[in-house]
Structure formats: structure tokens, C-alpha cells
């Protein structure tokens, strides 16, 4: 540990040298508040600030950032590699940044964040003026021992500066002879400042330890306080926007005036906003109460489950930002503790940004287009690189259209030798409306394959397979059917139960007729609204279940609209089918497909990562799964 002492004058001179060297983003006054902004003069720096309006992580994950540009030739990743110094970062905000480092490094590395992070230098400072709503002391984030490049602490009219990294050593060298070695007495004083901060930054008192929060929240799903408090909620997302650990985002395309080129931009999004969990077609998986609850659950339960930390650094910004005053996490957790008194009682180096950008689509060509129904169209696609997609039955891809955007689409074909794959797209939103106009030869962007698949490999023991499809649930299951026929000797009997609204909704009717003729295959249909020609079953798809024999090894794959699952599963359970053998494919708004944007989350699970195909036993206790 190298700690030096800088007089106030020496600190100013040092900051001037930093500004001369590279871009410095430092804390400055804005009226009666404080903000991070480009620092032009050392004199503008306010290390005595209480809290900034927005957290410093907004310089690593900006409220809006271009992910890529595109033109008719394809997409090009946009990276920001300008080095910069964040100056004046309070310990709780530093903790939040390190949490984000983990989030963006886990699984698919996010090169946009990671590259900016790799080019950042953080000069932290211990708090001099506690803000009115800070509860960092309660969360264990009032002070830090590491994670900074330099840490400044004010003691008796001077600053102690500790370097935590090689980068920090280099910066402190700029202080030259102004820097004097800190004495033991200096270090004692600093220890006292930090001890005082751990006590003073407790403007709200949490009646349990942060480690207890996951247990508390897991037990509080149905607490009446969610509903009561959420009635005051504006769904305005203020709590999300000012939060140092909220990182969810939305992605949209902006086309240039040539109407051929443009940009794809991601923008901070908030789980409190009305459309956050709304999917194309209009179903909203979370209403006001569920959105309100989700934020607390995410911070205190889902993030600890996934990453190992409570994603609240105690900065108190959400408390100040919420007009009806219902965002205070401490208040909420204490309120939940009233019903559950039984619960009352560092860091890795940042990884280098990877070469590959998981957000960048690769170019593909539409080979074939076939209109199936009024709303649904069939496409055959080939990647321009010639590489096979390499998917498994049940997986999906993100399909991009220049200037319009991206949508998750299930693959409806099994892997084949031609290196092509197929999809059925229903017109349900801007992207799918535009996709419906594609012609053979048109170019699209593809990312994937993504997500989990139906367990066709595990079924190699001559097991019987039952497919239950509702409406547009048929195409993803078609990939299983194709796989079944290309690996016929691995399987036993195949039964397809296919429910649709009306006979004209039937997809792949000719293929289905061919399937039926094969030995060991049964296909049964039902419709909600028969026409005059219909002679088959009428009613929900559950009506077909009694016609099927299930043995203990039968695997059942279910895919259909959200409402179908409950009824089908309830009936299957009544017939003695265990939840380990029921596989469902769930629909959510999978915006990024790489487990970052947050839209497809149901409780602690990301549908794009742990799903979309789940064994029902995996999700039977996940309340948001089939809501």
C-alpha cells in the first residue's frame, strides 16, 4: 500500500496535471446539487459533495449509446475507446461499478461496457458530507478497501491519496515532489474518518443484515404491502434511472435520411415502466404491482442468486427521486420484516473487452418466403458466411431488419445438411410487420442460435414423445418433429396434439398429413371455433389429452400461448405425468438475447439464458413463469 499526503494546493496542482493528461470527469456543483461532468479546472472539483444526481456508472453505461452503425452492406460495431478518469467517486458508487463489472463480464461479455471500463480510471474519495438519504453504512458500502485506482481521503486540511493499482501509481507520480509519505498519524486519522463514515452514512436503518434480504424477499412474494404501496406508483422509472445498479436497456434503430443507413442504439430502460415486460402481441407479464415488486426482488433476491451480491449500494438516490416516496428500499424491507421477524438480525480485475460483439448481427439471406395464413409467413434463411446455424430444436434467433429493429423468433426446422434454417413469423409488432414484407433474396441480420432446446438427445432411449401445440406454438415444435424423423430409430411413438382457434389457422397442414401417414405417429387436432367443414374435435387442446397414453418415460413438449400452459399442465398432472417430463417453451420480450437487458426476466431466471425451454419442474415454483 502506498499512501501519500497532498496539501490542498498540491491536490489542485495534481488535478490540473490530470486534466492536461486526459479527459477527466469530475464532480461539480449544479445549482444546489452535484453532477459528474467534464472537468475544465481543478477549482471546479467538489470533493465535498454529498451525492451526485446521477451515479458515475452512467459514464460506463451511458443513458444512450450507439451499439452499431449499419448500411446496406451490414452492421459495424461502435466502440468508445477514449481513456478517461472518473474523479470523486464515493465508495458506495465504486461498489456499484464493481457490481456492474460482474454483470457485464458474466456469460456473454459485453464489449461496449467492458471496453469503456478498461479505459477508465477511478479516483475515489471518502465521503466528506453525508447526503440526506444515504444508507451505505447499512449496506456495508460506506468505505472501501480496494477496487479504486486512487482513493482520496480528506484529513485536517490535506488529502491522503492511496494508490490501489499500477494505473493509480502512474497517476500519483504526477504529484511529483508535492507528495509526501503519509505518517502513521495520518493513517490513523484516515481510519477514524472511515470509521465515522461507516456510522454516519446510516440515514435509514435496516432492521436486518443485508445478507438476510434474499431469504426475507423469498418469503414475501405475497405480502400485502406490495399492492398497497404500488398504488402510489407513477410507473415513472425515476428510481431506475438514478440507480447505480440498474442496467436494463432497450434497443432501437434510427435510420438516416438516406433511408439506407443508420444506427442501433441502446438506451437505459426501467423495470417500473409500463411496457417493460410487454411482448409483441400485447400481453403484459407485469402490471403496476408486479413491476413495483420486481425492482425490490431483483435487487435483494434475484441479483444475489445470480451474482452473489445484493444490488443496492445504499446511495439513497431512489429515495430522493421518488415523488410519492415509496422507493426507499430500507422502508420496504423493514415493512416486510414486520411480517417476517425471523429474518431480523472483493473484487476481480476487469477483464479485457472481447473481440466479438454479441449484439452484432451477421448477414443472412432470405431464400424462400411462403404465406401460411393471414398473419403468418414462413421463411427459409441461410447465413451469408455459409456456416450452419448450429441450432437445436427449440432454440431461437434474434432477427434484425436495418432501421426497424430486432425481434426474437423461434426456429421451426431441425438442423439440416443444407446449412439453412426456417422460421414462421406472425405479424405482431413493428419488426414482424416489416418482416412480413420480405422477398426471396432480401437481406436480414441474425444473432444466435440462442437459449435452451427441447431434450431430444436425452430422449434417445426409444421414449415416446407427445407434442402439445397451441396456435403459433406449432412452428417451434416442428423443429422437434423434423428431428424425430431424422433420428427415427432413437424414439418410440410420436403424438402431436394441435389446438388452434379456427381451422384456417392450421400451419403446415400438408406436412402434418404426411407425418400422420408414418408408422408410430398420431396427429390429433382441435379448434375453438369450427367452420362447416370441420369434423374433428372442438374445444381447448386439453380435450385431446384423454386420447393419449402416457407412460412414466413419455416426454411432453408444450408450446403455445401463455394461458394454455396452466390448463395443460394441470390436466397432465391429474393423469399422473410428473413435472420432470413436461417441457414448456416460454415467450418473453427477449430484447438482447444475451442475459443483459433484463426484459425477459421472470423472478430470478432469464428466459433467454435458462430458457426458453424449461422442464416444468424447473419453473413450477417461479411465480412469474406462467402469470
Amino acid at each position, binding site marked *: 500500500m502506498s499512501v501519500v499526503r497532498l496539501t490542498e494546493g498540491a491536490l489542485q496542482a495534481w488535478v490540473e496535471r490530470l486534466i492536461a493528461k486526459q479527459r477527466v470527469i469530475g464532480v461539480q456543483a*449544479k*445549482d*444546489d*446539487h452535484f*453532477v459528474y461532468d467534464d472537468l475544465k479546472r481543478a477549482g471546479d472539483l467538489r470533493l465535498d459533495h454529498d451525492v451526485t*444526481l*446521477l451515479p458515475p456508472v452512467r459514464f460506463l453505461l451511458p*443513458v*444512450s449509446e450507439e451499439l452499431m452503425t449499419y448500411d446496406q452492406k451490414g452492421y459495424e460495431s461502435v466502440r468508445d475507446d477514449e481513456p478517461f478518469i472518473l474523479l470523486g467517486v464515493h465508495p458506495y458508487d465504486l461498489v456499484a461499478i464493481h457490481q456492474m463489472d460482474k454483470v457485464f463480464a458474466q456469460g456473454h461479455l459485453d464489449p461496449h461496457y467492458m471496453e469503456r471500463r478498461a479505459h477508465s480510471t477511478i479516483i475515489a474519495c471518502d465521503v466528506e458530507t453525508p447526503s440526506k438519504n444515504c444508507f451505505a453504512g447499512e449496506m456495508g458500502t460506506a468505505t472501501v478497501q480496494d477496487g479504486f485506482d486512487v482513493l482520496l481521503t480528506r484529513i485536517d486540511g490535506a488529502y491522503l491519496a492511496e494508490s490501489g493499482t499500477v494505473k493509480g501509481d502512474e497517476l500519483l507520480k504526477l504529484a511529483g515532489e508535492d507528495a509526501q509519505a503519509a505518517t502513521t498519524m495520518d493513517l490513523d486519522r484516515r481510519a477514524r474518518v472511515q470509521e465515522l463514515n461507516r456510522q454516519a452514512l446510516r440515514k435509514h436503518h435496516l432492521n436486518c443484515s443485508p445478507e438476510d434480504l434474499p431469504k426475507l424477499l423469498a418469503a414475501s412474494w405475497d405480502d400485502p404491502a406490495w399492492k398497497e404501496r404500488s*398504488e*402510489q*406508483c*407513477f*410507473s*415513472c*422509472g*425515476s428510481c431506475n*434511472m*438514478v440507480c447505480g445498479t440498474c442496467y436494463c436497456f432497450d434497443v432501437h*434503430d*434510427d*435510420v438516416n*435520411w438516406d*433511408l439506407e443507413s443508420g444506427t442501433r442504439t441502446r438506451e*437505459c430502460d*426501467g423495470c417500473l*415502466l*409500463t*411496457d417493460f415486460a410487454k411482448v409483441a402481441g400485447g400481453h403484459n407479464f407485469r402490471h*403496476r404491482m408486479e413491476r413495483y415488486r420486481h425492482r425490490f426482488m431483483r435487487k435483494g433476491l434475484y441479483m444475489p442468486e445470480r451474482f452473489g451480491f445484493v444490488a443496492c449500494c445504499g446511495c439513497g438516490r431512489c429515495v*430522493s*427521486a421518488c*415523488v*410519492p*416516496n415509496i422507493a426507499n428500499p430500507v422502508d420496504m424491507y423493514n415493512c416486510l420484516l414486520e411480517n417476517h421477524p425471523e429474518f431480523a438480525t472483493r473484487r476481480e480485475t476487469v477483464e479485457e473487452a472481447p473481440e466479438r460483439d454479441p449484439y452484432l448481427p451477421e448477414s443472412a439471406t432470405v431464400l424462400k418466403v411462403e404465406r401460411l395464413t393471414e398473419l403468418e409467413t414462413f421463411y427459409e434463411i441461410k447465413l451469408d458466411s455459409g456456416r450452419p446455424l448450429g441450432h437445436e430444436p427449440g432454440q431461437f434467433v434474434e432477427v434484425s431488419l436495418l*432501421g*426497424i*429493429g430486432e425481434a426474437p423468433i423461434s426456429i421451426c426446422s431441425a438442423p439440416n445438411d443444407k446449412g439453412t434454417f426456417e422460421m414462421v413469423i406472425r405479424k405482431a*409488432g*413493428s*419488426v414482424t*410487420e*416489416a418482416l412480413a*414484407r420480405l422477398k426471396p433474396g432480401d437481406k436480414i441480420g441474425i444473432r444466435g442460435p440462442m437459449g435452451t432446446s427441447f431434450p431430444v438427445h436425452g430422449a434417445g432411449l426409444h421414449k415416446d414423445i407427445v407434442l402439445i401445440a397451441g396456435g403459433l406454438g406449432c412452428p417451434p415444435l416442428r423443429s422437434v418433429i423434423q428431428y424425430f424423423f431424422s433420428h427415427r430409430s432413437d424414439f418410440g411413438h410420436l403424438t402431436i396434439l394441435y389446438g388452434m382457434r379456427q381451422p384456417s389457422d392450421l400451419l403446415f397442414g400438408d406436412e402434418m398429413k404426411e407425418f400422420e401417414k408414418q408408422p408410430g405417429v398420431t396427429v390429433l387436432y382441435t379448434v375453438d371455433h369450427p367452420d362447416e367443414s370441420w369434423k374433428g374435435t372442438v374445444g381447448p387442446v386439453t380435450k385431446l389429452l384423454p386420447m393419449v397414453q402416457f407412460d412414466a418415460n413419455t416426454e411432453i413438449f408444450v408450446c403455445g400461448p401463455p394461458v394454455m400452459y396452466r390448463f395443460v399442465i394441470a390436466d397432465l398432472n391429474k393423469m399422473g405425468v410428473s413435472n420432470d417430463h413436461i417441457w414448456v417453451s416460454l415467450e418473453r420480450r427477449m430484447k438482447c438475447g444475451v442475459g443483459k437487458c433484463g426484459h425477459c426476466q421472470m423472478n430470478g431466471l432469464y428466459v433467454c439464458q435458462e430458457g426458453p425451454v424449461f422442464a416444468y419442474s424447473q419453473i413450477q415454483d417461479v411465480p412469474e413463469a406462467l402469470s
Partner: protein
Amino acid sequence: MNEKPRVAIFDLTSCEGCQLQIVNLEEDILNLVNVVDVVEWREGISDQSEEYDIAIIEGSVSRPEDAERVKKIRERAKILIAMGACACIGGVNKLKNPLDLHEVAKTVYGDRADAPHLHSEKVRAIDEVVKVDYKIPGCPIDNREFARVIKSLLVGAEPSLPNYPVCVECKKAGNVCRYELGEICLGPITRAGCGARCPSYGMWCFGCRGPAEDANTDAAREVMQRYGKTKEDLEQKMSLFGTH
């Protein structure tokens, strides 16, 4: 695109400030006329046309002949866009609706109040008269949003507006909450898309873009007490754009 889409811009009762915002696109207006054919625009050109791919109306319907005009425009237009608060929600023109219209006319025009060309009726937004396909809200409109909507239509994407409250953009802009400054702000219940322009320039939100989807006005009324205000204070603010 082989033939450029034919675009026409019309104005009814309004200050024409939204059309001025189009003019304020500056060099982008040249880009705009590169990709569309402006066939009718009183403020910009003298031509007239019979058919439009996109018709844009600024202003609200406040006279019987306005309604007839709007219906004719609708008949000739493949896509009809209401532009600005007056066209989208009636705007400040609707302030007179709860009052005696003759009294209003006398206050404004004095002796000349009975002149036939000054006869007006209760103000209506365009979609109270004919079907509107898209709205570009705001008083005035944000010309970047205007450009985005037009470009979306040209590339065949569905134009979409933010449906969340202004607070989102206000927080992103790093503003201090107007409630913290002791003001009543309509940001929490008003549709975003303006970039929180008023709060960013030191004023509260006037609600010119109309309510956000799912706007919680009940909560807005209840929260007044917390800030030492009354529901009536809030409602008075909400009456300006007649939206909530």
C-alpha cells in the same frame, strides 16, 4: 422507393408553431424534401394537390367548416397524422370549452364578437372528428420526433412514441426534481418524448404531450398533500392542456 411519397401539411386553429418546428429542422429539411414530395403546405409552398400519401394536420377543429375540411383531407389521405397538442388533444384551445362561448368571444373580440367569420364552437382534437393514424404530440412538437416518425413511415417501420412519463427523460438528463424545488410538475403523468425540455430549462412540465399510458393521476392527486399543495392546485395545472 420508386416514387416519392406525397406529403401535405395543413393547419387549423393553432399558432403554427409546430410547422415552424419543421422549418427549424434546418439542413434536415433539405434531406426531408429529398425523400418526400411536399405537395401542399401553405406555410412553405403554393401548390395544391388532390391525393396524399401522408397528410399532416396542425391545429384543432373549432369551427363547423374546420370539421368539413378535416373530413375531406381524411378522404384524400392514405395516412393522417395529427401534429402538435392542438391537433392531438385540443391543446390550449380547449380552455374555452367549459365556458360560455359567446362570453369568450366578447372577451376576446369585444364589439366584433358577432362577426360571422369569428363564430366558433367547442374545440375538438382531430381524432374527435376523423380517424387519426399517428400522433406527434407536444406544444410545440419536437422536430427530432417529427423526423423520426416520418422516417419510420418511409422505411415501413411502425412509428412509436414513448408511453412512459417525462420523469424518465428528466432523470436521464440529470435534472433536479421540480417537486424538490416546491413546484407542481406534470412530468410524472405526462407522456415523454420531449426530452424533458421544460424541466431541463428550469420550468415544471405543463403536460403538453398528454397523459402517459397508464398515468396514475389518482396518485398524483394524493401526493399533493406531501408537498403542501392541494388537488385543486394540481387540477388547475392539468387544465391548461385539457388532457387529464
